[in-house]
């Protein structure tokens, strides 16, 4: 019944390994930064929804951390892609 928790945990681990390998193997380039930030957003949202349990709570309580995550990731992306 609660197997979804194990799926969330495994997804988080896989996405973390993916991020680490990109960095470790020096594959990070300006194009992959966006992909890396997207995986970070997915991981954060999984924690908010399933670990913090905010998926089962009224939207107004879930909105703040989700919007925080989205805005933070978008602004970081902006900082990396904005021409200098």
């Amino acid at each position, binding site marked *: 019944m609660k197997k979804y928790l194990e799926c969330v945990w495994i997804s988080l681990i896989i996405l973390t390994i993916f991020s680490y390998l990109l960095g470790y193997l020096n594959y990070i380039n300006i194009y992959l930064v966006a992909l*890396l930030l997207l995986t970070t957003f997915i991981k*954060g949202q999984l*924690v908010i929804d399933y670990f913090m349990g905010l998926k089962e709570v009224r939207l107004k309580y879930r909105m703040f951390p989700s919007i925080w995550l989205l805005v933070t990731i978008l602004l970081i992306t902006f900082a990396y892609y904005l021409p200098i």
Partner: protein
Amino acid sequence: MLKNIALKEDHPPGDFAVWIIIYVELVTFGLLFLGYAFSRRSDIELFNASQEVLSQTSGFVNTIILITSSYFVVKAVNSMKNMTQKNHKESNIKASKWLLLALVCGVTFLVIKITEFSHIFEYGINLSTNTFFMFYILSTGFHFMHVLLGSVILFNIYKKTKSYAYTPDDYSGFETGASYWHMVDLLWIVLFPLIYIIR
């Protein structure tokens, strides 16, 4: 649709006060992350060179540890949620086992972080070395303090579960500590790629 709305809880898990703290912490760390990302633009070469000093592997291992500890905490919370008056002792025992695992993860994270900090300080690096290390020490040091506090909270909850103090009507304190721990995990999930990986 209507059915889904009706099933939603009125309040987030735990005391509402902890959620105010969580929201404030998220904003504070968010500003630190953005400060880092935008400061990097002024000297990308320096930031990339400074990043080479950090161990991506220890950052990676710490990420795995925090994610796993959060998973253990959710399992402990689920033990509480399934608690009835009849099985309240067994539920406390079950939760205490999950909490102990989470606590071990928390302490391991702290040990790895102390080792990492000691290497950094051995090189003579400090807050005034350069902008990268100022942000690195501030954000990871500040986060370290949160993991330390979270571990103390988990330990107190653990002690209460050992004395079967939580009942089906009163385990809000348990959920409060768990929510704080997940916040610590969420912050690290953003911090890890930002400081250790992205170049």
